[in-house]
């Protein structure tokens, strides 16, 4: 029962990741999907995999994507300003 619910949630959040258009929101959706996956691992009695998944899937990976997005945005604004100057 619990596993069924989590599997449905996994499909729902996974579809959410695919259908989200804005990158920043997509990163959040990816984190939600990773969290559900970690809970599913926990329900399947694999706490060690769940530990790795919860850290990598909901903390490390979204953070790295966020940093990349922030970095790109900073660069883009700087280029805009340079173009405006010339």
């Amino acid at each position, binding site marked *: 029962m619990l596993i069924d619910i989590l599997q449905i949630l996994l499909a729902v959040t996974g579809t959410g990741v695919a259908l989200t258009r804005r990158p920043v929101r997509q990163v959040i959706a990816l984190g939600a999907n990773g969290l559900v996956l970690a809970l599913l691992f926990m329900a399947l009695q694999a*706490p060690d995999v769940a*530990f790795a998944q919860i850290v990598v899937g909901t903390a*490390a990976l979204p*953070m790295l994507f966020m940093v990349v997005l922030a970095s790109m945005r*900073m660069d883009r604004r700087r280029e805009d300003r340079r173009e405006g100057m010339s």
Partner: protein
Amino acid sequence: MKPRVRTALFLAAAAGAMPALVRALPHFPAFGDHPSPYADRVLASAPVDRHVQNVVTALNFDYRGFDTLGEEFILLCAVTGVTVLLRGSRGEHRSARTGQVEGRPVIPPGEAVTLIARLFGVATFVLGLSVALHATSTPGGGFQGGVLIASGFLLVFLGEGYRGWRAMMQAELMDAVEAAGALVYVGCGLVGVWQGLPYLTNTLPLGTAGSVWAGGLMPVINAGVTCAVLGGFGMLFIEFLEETRVNPDAEQDTEAPKS
């Protein structure tokens, strides 16, 4: 590619793959069924053979220790690659200002966030340490413990902001911890070689099952993996978060035309 072309391509591919999927689905093994005799045999023999309750650790660090050594070096190479690519442009100075996009305020962490991050940061660190230490007796091990401790680092960043975080995260120390961990693993393999046995042979006394020291070489390799993983992830976080800082040289470039 236009959305319409993309959808048509997807539908064509799906139509092609669907019959194969429909034919394969009824022949899947039942949920939870594993047709490999190896798993059953290892589950039965590892507690007797290696004095270890957590068979996953016995597989990772003993039976298949050489594979894990390879994985260890994949992580090391990946982090080295990231460091080489990202080092040098931004954030070399620890006090570098937060990069800012016009019209977006830089919000310092609120008091509640700091409090929660402090409480959970310590708890995460202790949990990570416990998971790593009890690798041979409870689920988890060096990798899981290492990433849990590293995620504690992220909580410090969340609560204390970049400067407080960088005061704690010494890049040189992270480098050293990561490299020392990998070296410990390589050195453990040489213990067997020195006795004239194959690389990574577990020749240390196995100890009593259930103790932190059970498993001979495994606790030593486990400590090495813990250090390598937490150093590697720490390094990764430092290199990436440095990218959110302002490069002082570039800042002069762009600030100049304003005046």
